[in-house]
C-alpha cells in the first residue's frame, strides 16, 4: 500500500479544510490589520471653532481647558496618502492617538514600520469569539430602590435631574429605544442630540442589541413617571461601538472614534458599559496603559470628559480583575452591589489594577429594573451600575457647572457611603445625594478598646483582645434590608490590604482581635454607618 500517497492526500485534505475555515472566519489571514502611529502632526493653524460644536467649546471654557491641544490637531494628510500606497484599505484615523488603522499585505508590514514618519506599528488581528452573556434575570426587585438608594428625592427637590448635561453612551446597540415609552420624554423634548453607529458607519443605532437600551434607561428612563435613573432631563449622544456576537479588536478602535466624536460634539460624560478582558489581554495588562481603549479613555478624561465605566462581570470567574478601560486611572470605575443590602454582588469585578491602584472607585446596584427591547424587567451586571452613577454625576455637575471632570470625580467618591474607607470590591461605596449635599455624618458609631496589660508582667497574647463595640445609639437594623453592615479590613505593615470583610452586625461586641493576631505595625480600618476609623496596632 502506498502510504506516502495517502498521507499526502490526508494532509492535502486537512489544508483544504483549514483554508475553508479561514474563509469562513474572515479572509484576513493574508491581510494584516495594523494600527500605525505617526511621529508628528502638521503645525498649520487649526480652526477649533469650525471643528468643535459650541457645546464642546463651552465645556472647554468652563473647565479652563485650552480651546484645542495637540490631540485635536488632524493627522498629517500626506502621511495618510503615503500609507495608502502600502495599504489595501484605510479603516479609520484617530487624532487622539495620531494613528491610522489599516489593512495591508503581510509583506508591507515591515515597509510601513520603516517609514520615516511612523513611530510604532501594532498588529490588531481579528478574532472570532462568541461573547459571553452577562445578563441573567432574578426575582423581581423594587423599581425605586436603585434610585432612592442614591438619593433621587433630594436631587428632585432641588431640581437636579441632569438638565443641560450632555451624556454620551457607547454600547452594542439601542434596539427598540426609538419607540420605547421609557424614553418618550427624551424624544418629545428632542434631547437626543446625535447618534452614530461606528460599526456600520451609519446614523441608525436602534439595532444590534438592546443592552444599550437597558443601560440608557438606567440613566434617564421612566416607567409611568417613575424614574429608572437619576438624570431624566439630560441630553444624549448615542453611539454603537460594540458587536454583540464577536469580540474583535475593532471594537476598541470604534470606542476611541466614538470618544473623539463625543468630544467634538461637546459630551460632558461618557458612559461605557463595556469591558475587554482575557480574549485580548492578560491580567497584568490591566494597568491603564496597555489596552488601546484605556489609553483612549485617559485622553478623553484629559479633554474634560468624565468617563464612567462598568467594572466588569468577572468577579466570580478566573479573570476576577476589572476590565479595560475600567483599569484607567482617570476613569470612574463602578462596581455592583446587591440590591437587598449594599454589599458586593458576586459577579462584580475586583480591584486592584495590576499596578495596584484602587479600583473600583464607587459602586451602585448591580441588579436593576430597566427598559428592555419590549417592555421592562430585571437585569443584572455592572453595565447597569455604571449608568446609575453616570446619572448621579450629571445631577451634581448640573449644580456645579464650573467644576472640572476630575473635581466631579472626587466629589462622587466623597459622596459615597463608605468614604474615606475603601476596598477593592466596593471602592468608596454607593454615592448618595445626602452625603453630597450635607457631607458625611461622622458621629462615632463604635469604639475600639485596646486590652489593658499595663499592670501585667507576663501574659499570653492569645488571652487579650482588641474589642470593637457598637455604640448603643447606633445599634439599629436598616429598615429596608433588616441588616446593619460593618466593613473592615486588615492591613499589613506596608499599609496594603491583606483581607477585607463585610459583616452583618447582630451583637454590639462585633470583633475581638487577639493581641497575637494584632501584630505591631499592622492596622485595621473599620466603617460602620458612615463612621470610619483606622487603628494601628
Amino acid at each position, binding site marked *: 500500500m502506498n*502510504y506516502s500517497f*495517502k*498521507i499526502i492526500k*490526508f*494532509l492535502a*485534505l*486537512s489544508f483544504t*479544510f*483549514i483554508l475553508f*475555515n479561514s474563509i469562513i*472566519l474572515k479572509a484576513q*489571514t493574508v491581510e494584516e490589520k495594523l494600527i500605525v502611529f505617526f511621529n508628528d502632526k502638521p503645525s498649520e493653524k487649526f480652526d477649533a471653532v469650525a471643528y468643535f460644536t459650541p457645546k464642546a467649546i463651552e465645556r472647554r471654557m468652563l473647565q479652563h481647558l485650552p480651546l484645542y491641544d495637540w490631540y485635536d490637531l488632524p493627522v498629517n494628510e500626506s502621511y495618510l496618502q503615503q500609507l495608502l500606497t502600502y495599504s489595501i484599505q484605510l479603516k479609520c484615523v484617530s487624532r487622539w492617538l495620531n494613528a491610522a488603522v489599516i489593512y495591508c499585505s503581510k509583506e508591507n508590514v515591515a515597509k510601513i514600520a520603516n517609514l520615516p514618519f511612523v513611530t510604532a506599528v501594532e*498588529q*490588531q*488581528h*481579528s*478574532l*472570532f*469569539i462568541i461573547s459571553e452573556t452577562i445578563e441573567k434575570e432574578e426575582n423581581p426587585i423594587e423599581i425605586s430602590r436603585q434610585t432612592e438608594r442614591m438619593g433621587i428625592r433630594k436631587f428632585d427637590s432641588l431640581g437636579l435631574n441632569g438638565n443641560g448635561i450632555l451624556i454620551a453612551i457607547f454600547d452594542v446597540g439601542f434596539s427598540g429605544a426609538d419607540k420605547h415609552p421609557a424614553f418618550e420624554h427624551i424624544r418629545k423634548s428632542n434631547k437626543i442630540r446625535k447618534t452614530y453607529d461606528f460599526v456600520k458607519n451609519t446614523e441608525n443605532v436602534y439595532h444590534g442589541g438592546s443592552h444599550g437600551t437597558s443601560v440608557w434607561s438606567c440613566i434617564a428612563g421612566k416607567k409611568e413617571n417613575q424614574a429608572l435613573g437619576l438624570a431624566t432631563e439630560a441630553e444624549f449622544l448615542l453611539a454603537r461601538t460594540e458587536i454583540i456576537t464577536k469580540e474583535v*479588536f475593532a471594537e476598541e478602535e470604534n470606542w476611541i472614534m466614538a470618544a473623539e466624536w463625543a468630544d467634538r460634539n461637546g459630551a460632558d460624560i461618557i458612559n461605557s458599559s463595556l469591558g475587554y*478582558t*482575557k*480574549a*485580548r*489581554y*492578560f*491580567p*497584568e*495588562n490591566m494597568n491603564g496603559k496597555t489596552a488601546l481603549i484605556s489609553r483612549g479613555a485617559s485622553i478623553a478624561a484629559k479633554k474634560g470628559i468624565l468617563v464612567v465605566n462598568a467594572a466588569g462581570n468577572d468577579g466570580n470567574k478566573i479573570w*476576577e*480583575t476589572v476590565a479595560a478601560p475600567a483599569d484607567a486611572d482617570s476613569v470612574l470605575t463602578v462596581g455592583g452591589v446587591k440590591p437587598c*443590602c449594599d*454589599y*458586593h454582588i458576586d459577579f462584580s469585578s*475586583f*480591584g*486592584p489594577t*495590576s499596578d*495596584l491602584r484602587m479600583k473600583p472607585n464607587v459602586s451602585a446596584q448591580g441588579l436593576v429594573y430597566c427598559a428592555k427591547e419590549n417592555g421592562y424587567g430585571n437585569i443584572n451586571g455592572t453595565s447597569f451600575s455604571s449608568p446609575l452613577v453616570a446619572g448621579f454625576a450629571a445631577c451634581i455637575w448640573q449644580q456645579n457647572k464650573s467644576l472640572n471632570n476630575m473635581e466631579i470625580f472626587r466629589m462622587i467618591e466623597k459622596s459615597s457611603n463608605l468614604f474615606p474607607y475603601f*476596598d*477593592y*470590591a466596593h471602592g468608596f461605596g454607593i454615592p448618595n445625594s445626602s452625603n453630597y449635599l450635607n457631607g458625611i455624618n461622622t458621629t462615632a458609631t463604635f469604639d475600639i478598646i485596646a486590652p489593658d496589660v499595663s499592670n501585667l508582667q507576663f501574659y499570653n497574647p492569645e488571652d487579650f483582645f482588641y474589642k470593637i463595640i457598637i455604640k448603643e445609639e447606633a445599634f439599629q437594623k436598616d429598615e429596608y434590608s433588616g*441588616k446593619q*453592615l*460593618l466593613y473592615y479590613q486588615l492591613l499589613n505593615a506596608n499599609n*496594603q*490590604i*491583606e*483581607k*477585607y*470583610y*463585610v*459583616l*452583618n*452586625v*447582630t*451583637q454590639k461586641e*462585633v*470583633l475581638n482581635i487577639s493581641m497575637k493576631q494584632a501584630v505591631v505595625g499592622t492596622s485595621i480600618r473599620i466603617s460602620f454607618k458612615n463612621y470610619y476609623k483606622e487603628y494601628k496596632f
Partner: protein
Amino acid sequence: MMKINKIIVLLFLASFSATGQEILFEKDPAIDTTIEKKGPNRKNFTHPFISFGFAIDAGEKGATVVQPNLDQFAIGFRYKRRLNNTFSVGFECSYTNYAFSIKQNNQKTTPDSTINKRQRLYFYDIQLGAYFRINFGKRGNILGNYFDIAPYSEAVVAFTEFSKYKLPDGSVVRARRSGIDYFQRFNYGIQARIGLKKLIFFGQYRISNAFYGDKNLAEIPRITAGIQFVLK
C-alpha cells in the same frame, strides 16, 4: 444519659455562637504581582478534552463500515508548552475507543465472511501523541485560533468482536468475542487539528495496519474526522 446531656449542652453552645456576627463577604485582594505561569496562553497549560470522530473513508472492500456512525470516542488530557505567541508544542494522552460497524454483505471478509445481522469491532486504546501548534492572531489569555499537526501512537489494550445474528429457530443471539489475535497491538498515525478557542475540528489518518498481514483481512477505515472539546 450523661453523654446525651453533654451533647445537648454542646448543641446549645453551638447554636449560641451561630447567632454571632454573620460574615457576608470576605476577600483576599490580588496584590501579588507575580505573573501566572499557567493558563491557555501562558507558558504551561494542561487541559482535559473529549473527542468524537467519524470514519471518513468506508474502509477497504471486505471491511466497509456503516456510515455515518460514531466510530471514535476519546477522553484524555493535553499539555501545551508555549514557545511564543505563534508557536507551541505539547503532548497528549487519551483513552480512545473505536467502534466500527461492519457492513454485512457478500464482499465481507473482515473479520470473517459470515453474514450477521450486525457486527462491530471494538478497539480499546491508550493513545499517546505529540503536537506542534501554530497560533493565529493577537490574543490574551485564551487558546485563540490554531492549527496542530500531531503524530500519535496507540496501544490496543483490548479488542472485542460483537455480533448479533439470528439462529434458524428465529431466536436472536448477541455474542461478544475477546482473546482474538488477528489485530495489531500497536498503531500509529497522524492527526491534524483546527482549533477555534475550545472547539477543535480534527482529521486523523492511521498509517499502520489494523490487522496482521498474514491474516489477509481487509482494512477498516484509516481516516476519521470529528470534533473535540477542550474541557477547561
